[in-house]
Structure formats: structure tokens, C-alpha cells
């Protein structure tokens, strides 16, 4: 397992550089938007990765509520943290792309608003984890994660009712895309997913070690107390 981590790291680095080359050089230039459109290869894969991570967070939280395994709790924490990072990338690259294309940084349309609300929900999840202390944190956080996930369809449907400026989803939205562009997009998505997995893995190990250290310290202070009293 320990050797797998650097190997995956090197593979991810190669994949990310290849994806960058594909996005900046190989992919055809979009006819109306020009080179600005190349941000698409970062914007969309980040969004997909964030959604997947939030879904993992939901599954891990339900798992924790049923079986109470600490590992499930760590997975939930890690996926929410990394998901928020990727969601932030989406929210930052979106306006950068929108400014030259739509002429505005931000518009309150369906997709932008629903992504922002999703981001808010998971930031509040991280807040709860930060502000609660002791052994109850995993349970409270898991309960919030379940309610947060229940909220997602409502966010989607309520904001769907407004007019939308954002293009239809690339997948299953009836939009058409150049197959070469799709190819580059999928390569980028693969690279981003590998990167997210790598970050999650290292964060998982860090969190696990941190908890072990905390436990050891607590145990130590318990055994030391009578000795100093003597």
C-alpha cells in the first residue's frame, strides 16, 4: 500500500501534464469564443469531480450512521473537504469564463446558483465539524450530511424553474460537442479524478495519524496523572 502512493502520484503528474497539453494545444479552438473556451477543460471536470466527492460524502455519512466505523467518518470528512476545494475551483473558473463570453462575471441562473448553494451547504458542514468537539462530531456531521444531500434535489428543482443562461449539460442535455473536444474533456476529467483521489488518500492518512496521536496523548495524560500525584 505504501509503495502504491508514490506510484499513483507519478502517474497522476504524467496524466495531468498530458491533459494540460491536450487542453491547450491539441483541442480545436472554439469558433465563436476562441481560446477563452479552453477553461472549459478545467471548469467541467472540476464540477464533475466535486459532485462525485459530495456523493461519496453522502454514502460515507449513511455508512457511518449505520455501522459507526471511524473510517467511514474520515472518508466523509475528507471527501467534503476536497469536494469544497473542487467546487471552489468551479465557482472561480466560471466567472473568469463568463466575463469575456457573457460580458458579466456572475448571473443568478440555475446552474450557478445551485452550485453556489451546494458549496454553502458543504462549507456549513465543515463549519460544524470545526465548531463541535469530542466524540459527537461524527454523528452530528453525518446527520447534517444526510439532510444536506436531501436538499440537493430541491435546490435543483427550485432553481430550474427560473430561466437559465448557462449552456445545457454536456452529457445527456441534448447539447452537441466536437468529438475531439469531448476526448480532451474526458482525459482531463480522468486526470482530475486521479488528482482528487490522491489528495483524498493523503488527507485520509493524515487524519488517521492525527487521531492516533490524539488518542495516544489522551492515554498518556491518563497514565501520567497518578504518577505526578505521587
Amino acid at each position, binding site marked *: 500500500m505504501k509503495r502504491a502512493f508514490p506510484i499513483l502520484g507519478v502517474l497522476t503528474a504524467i496524466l495531468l501534464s498530458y491533459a494540460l497539453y491536450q487542453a491547450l494545444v491539441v483541442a480545436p479552438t472554439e469558433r465563436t469564443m476562441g481560446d477563452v473556451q479552453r477553461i472549459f477543460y478545467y471548469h467541467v471536470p472540476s464540477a464533475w469531480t466535486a459532485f462525485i466527492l459530495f456523493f461519496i460524502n453522502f454514502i460515507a455519512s449513511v455508512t457511518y450512521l449505520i455501522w459507526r466505523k471511524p473510517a467511514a467518518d474520515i472518508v466523509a470528512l475528507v471527501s467534503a473537504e476536497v469536494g469544497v476545494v473542487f467546487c471552489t475551483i468551479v465557482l472561480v473558473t466560471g466567472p473568469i469564463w463568463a466575463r469575456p463570453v457573457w460580458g458579466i462575471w456572475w448571473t443568478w441562473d440555475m446552474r450557478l446558483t445551485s452550485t453556489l*448553494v451546494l458549496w454553502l451547504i458543504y462549507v456549513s458542514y465543515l463549519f*460544524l465539524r470545526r465548531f463541535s468537539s469530542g*466524540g*459527537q462530531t461524527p454523528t*452530528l456531521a453525518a*446527520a*447534517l450530511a444526510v439532510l444536506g444531500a436531501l*436538499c440537493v434535489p430541491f435546490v435543483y428543482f427550485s432553481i430550474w424553474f427560473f430561466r437559465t443562461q448557462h449552456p445545457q449539460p454536456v452529457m445527456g442535455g441534448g447539447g452537441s460537442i466536437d468529438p475531439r473536444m469531448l476526448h480532451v474533456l474526458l482525459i482531463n476529467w480522468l486526470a482530475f479524478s486521479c488528482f482528487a483521489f490522491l489528495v483524498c488518500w493523503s488527507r485520509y492518512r493524515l487524519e488517521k495519524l492525527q487521531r492516533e496521536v490524539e488518542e495516544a496523548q489522551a492515554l498518556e495524560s491518563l497514565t501520567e496523572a497518578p504518577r505526578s500525584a505521587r
Partner: protein
Amino acid sequence: MSPPSGITRATLLKDLRLEWRSKDAINSMLFFSMLVVVVFSFSFDPNAEESRQIAGGLIWVAFLFAAVVALNQTWARELRNQVLDAYRVSPAPANSLFLAKAVGNFIFVTVLEALMTPLFIVFYQLRALGPAWQLLVVAMLGTWALVVNGTFFAAMSIRTRSREIMLPLLLFPISIPALLAMVQATTAILTGEGARFWIVLLVTYDLVFTTGCLLLFETVLNAE
């Protein structure tokens, strides 16, 4: 052991009696929402036609902020003298406690709305162009949506550090779809458009989140 409905009724009556004698929650909510109304009136110049467009949002934002004041007090009251711990070790089902608290908050916020709505109508010269009875339905559904989640998250935030700040941080993001539906439905009724979609959305939201909160409340109450 008394039946769950008996426990709900006893807790609810106790809360209502406490509130009737102290009037802490309702007074602070009333004053707070009045402040919001006055502050809002400075930030734009309301004339009848324009205010009809924004009144829906304004009313609900005032009620939401005011409700947080009452929601924060819900469980804080039970921390004194370890009442909540006593409840936790008793064999009484957790959900009857939750329902009592949620219904109690619902009553408080409804009273607030009943008292504040005439003031809104006077201040902003409102007159519904659509069917006004629908406003009542929207108010009921919207209040329940705020209160059921609010009671749940108040029980959660009471377990954290800086608990008064934590409640809005947890409650507002999850309430956004409900808030959007309430605001849109109110505006649609005031301006005379149809509000059916938003009412259906509110009903579904209420059903889903009431079920979710009831399923998870025991876990949260007993979290160690």
C-alpha cells in the same frame, strides 16, 4: 409510561406556559422583525407597485431572522438544571420531544406572523392581486419548513462551541430552497400570478424534511 402523544402534549404545554409567563421569545422576535422592516424601508423607496415586487422577499427575510431568535432559545432552556440529560436517560421517545418543540416554535412564529403582517400591509401599502387565502397556505407551509429544520439544527448547534452563531450557519443553506419557494409564492400571489408550482415544492420539502428530522433526531439527541 405515558403514551408518546401525552409526552408531546405535556412538553408543549410546559413550553407554552413558560412563554406565556415570560414572553421572552415573542417580544424579542417582534421587536427584531420591526427593526428589520424599518431598516429595509431606508434601503429603498417603497411605492405601492414596486413594494409588491419585493415585499415577498422582505417579509420572509424578516421572519427568518426573527425565528432564529426563538429557535436559539428552544434547547438552551433545557440545558439549565440538566433537563436535557434527564430526558436522554428517560425511556420517553425522542421524537415526541422533538415534535413538541417543533410545534411550540411553530406556534410562536405563527403568532409573530399574525402580529407583524398587518404592520407590513400598512407600511408598504400591500394589496394582494391574486387569491389572498393562498397566502395563508404559503405562510403555514413555509413556517413549518423553517421551524422543523430550525428545531433540528438548534438541537445540533447546542452541542457545539459558539452555539448562537452556529444555528444560522447550518439552517440558512439548507433552507434556501424553502425560502426561495416561500418568497416566489408570496410575490406571485401579491402580483396576481399563479403560485401552484411553489406550493407543491413547499409541500414536498416539508414532507421530506419532517421525515428526515424525525428519523435522525434520536441519533443527534443521543450523540456522545
